[in-house]
């Protein structure tokens, strides 16, 4: 068991190393000299050379990669080209916003989708399911940012439930901060929720056809007993994978949602750095998300092994 996790963590670290190398070399091969772009085209060659040396750009590629990785591990992602402040402090300030948004929408997704997915499957092919399925399919088709705009209009401008654009920093007031993030979180959660419901419904229906369900009925279980005691655990297996990947997806989705609700989060930082060609910041954000992807992979794996004993066997011995 421990041996398995040891191996797993090693392979995840290797994955991270590969990603970091790809990211680093990608920003290496792009045309344009960061020193030049920082000083402008009319700078003297001497000044450029001096700045290149200061930025470490005159060293060999692999050496710079090695230095960069060592510094990243230490938590130092370099200095922003455009703002000349440590990348870490720029990102660190924004992290709580993105994390809160992600946690809020993920928990909404999980809490709402499980009972609804089971309910649809229970009434499969009856009117409730048919109507619910079509509604679900339609909701899945609404992009989160359009939902956000609709919510801004309906809840903000018409009903005045919240003040559009009135973001409250977590430094000012934590309840106010969370209160403001709830509507954006709902906008992110609704399409994800619809997808979870669809997946769970399909998984439950697929499980319901299996032989062990018939065995359960033959012992005198009622439909609800069969669903919750036998089917649910097996049907959650595909959903766990989906949720694991949804976390990274939600973070990516929050980039757009932050624009809609004018929230100064990680997404805003990424977008400005992309347009400013502020590569240390872009690299850091990408690496950060890669870490989340890899971590979620680990969490999914742990959950998987809790739910499905067959997975445990495959790596034993």
């Amino acid at each position, binding site marked *: 068991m421990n041996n398995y996790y040891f191996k797993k963590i090693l392979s995840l670290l290797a994955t991270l190393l590969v990603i970091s190398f790809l990211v680093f070399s990608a920003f290496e091969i792009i045309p344009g000299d960061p020193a030049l772009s920082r000083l402008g085209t009319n700078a003297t060659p001497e000044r450029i050379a001096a700045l290149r040396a200061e930025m470490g750009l005159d060293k060999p590629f692999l050496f710079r990669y090695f230095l960069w990785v060592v510094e990243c591990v230490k938590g130092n992602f370099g200095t922003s080209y455009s703002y000349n402040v440590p990348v870490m402090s720029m990102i660190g300030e924004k992290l709580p916003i993105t994390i809160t948004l992600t946690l809020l929408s993920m928990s909404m997704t999980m809490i709402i989708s499980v009972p609804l997915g089971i309910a649809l499957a229970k009434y499969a092919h009856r009117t409730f399911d048919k109507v619910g399925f079509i509604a679900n399919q339609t909701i899945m088709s609404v992009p989160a*940012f*359009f939902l956000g*705009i*609709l919510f801004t*209009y309906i809840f903000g*401008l018409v009903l005045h439930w919240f003040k559009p654009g009135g973001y409250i920093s977590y430094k000012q007031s934590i309840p106010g901060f969370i209160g403001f993030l709830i509507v954006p979180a709902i906008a992110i959660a609704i399409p994800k929720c619809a997808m979870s419901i669809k997946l769970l419904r399909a998984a439950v229906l697929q499980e319901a056809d299996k032989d062990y369900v018939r065995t359960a009925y033959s012992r005198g279980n009622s439909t609800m007993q069969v669903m919750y005691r036998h089917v649910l655990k097996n049907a959650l297996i595909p959903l766990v994978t989906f949720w694991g990947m949804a976390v990274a997806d939600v973070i990516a989705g929050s*980039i757009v949602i932050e624009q809609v609700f004018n929230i100064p989060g990680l997404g805003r930082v990424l977008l400005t750095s*992309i347009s400013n*060609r502020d590569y240390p910041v872009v690299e850091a954000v990408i690496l950060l998300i890669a870490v989340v*992807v890899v971590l979620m992979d680990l969490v999914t794996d742990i959950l998987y092994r809790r739910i499905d004993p067959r997975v445990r066997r495959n790596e034993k011995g």
Partner: protein
Amino acid sequence: MLQSIRKTLKKYNNFFFNVGMIITLVFFVLAVVGCFYTPYNTTEMNVALKNSSPALAHIFGCDNYGRDIFSRVMEGIRNTFFISFFTVMIGSLAGIVIGAISGYYGGKLDEILMRINDVMFAFPSVLLALVIISLFGSGTMVVTLALGIAFIPSFARIVRSEYKKQAALDYVQSAKLMGAKDIRVIFVHILPNILPVLVSSVMIGFNNAVLAEAGLSYLGIGVQPPEASLGRMLSEAQSYLFSAPWYALFPGLAIVFMVLGFSMLAEGISAAKSR
């Protein structure tokens, strides 16, 4: 020929497929017509019509420059449609080749390919596209290419698992025993059997491509003004949300229905397959 078309139509005659087909056809016609004709010039401004509400002459109303929103939505649909088309083409063709090789041959090659693929797959496609765009700029071509590349892993994953399933079946062994070369087994023997899955995942690909393109153009990446794009229209409409809510509503609905059409088609195809 005619008979086989009729047979196919009968096989796919279900609610989801029909609704999806109708919606998609409407958008397809709008996109194609949008290449040659729009009711008004999409860039012509008219101060008198600034933020005017929907009326007979301008059924979707006018935007903050007094441009006809219906015409601009048509143009946006056209752009989204073609960007999505090429995105899915790039993603699916590369995905088929990678997935087929990986799934059919298996072994170490499969392990390495899928390792890379899985990391890329778990990486949100919008973000992957953003990385590529940050490297090469934000034109229409780059966005199409970036999304196309970002879509490869999901296709490769599906195709690989189908090939793995098929390669384990006896008819594949049988074909090899007859003396069929691998390339023939892959494309002549196996490919027709995964076609339904492939078509349905291409439709889901369209669905995701439309969503991703709209998201990116909302961020101002992709189609550049004054050319219309649905996402950018939404982002511009946000400033006038209170005075001209229809400006946001119509491009948004266009995205929703376009996505809905493709997802219904995908649903309909899987439903026909499982019957």
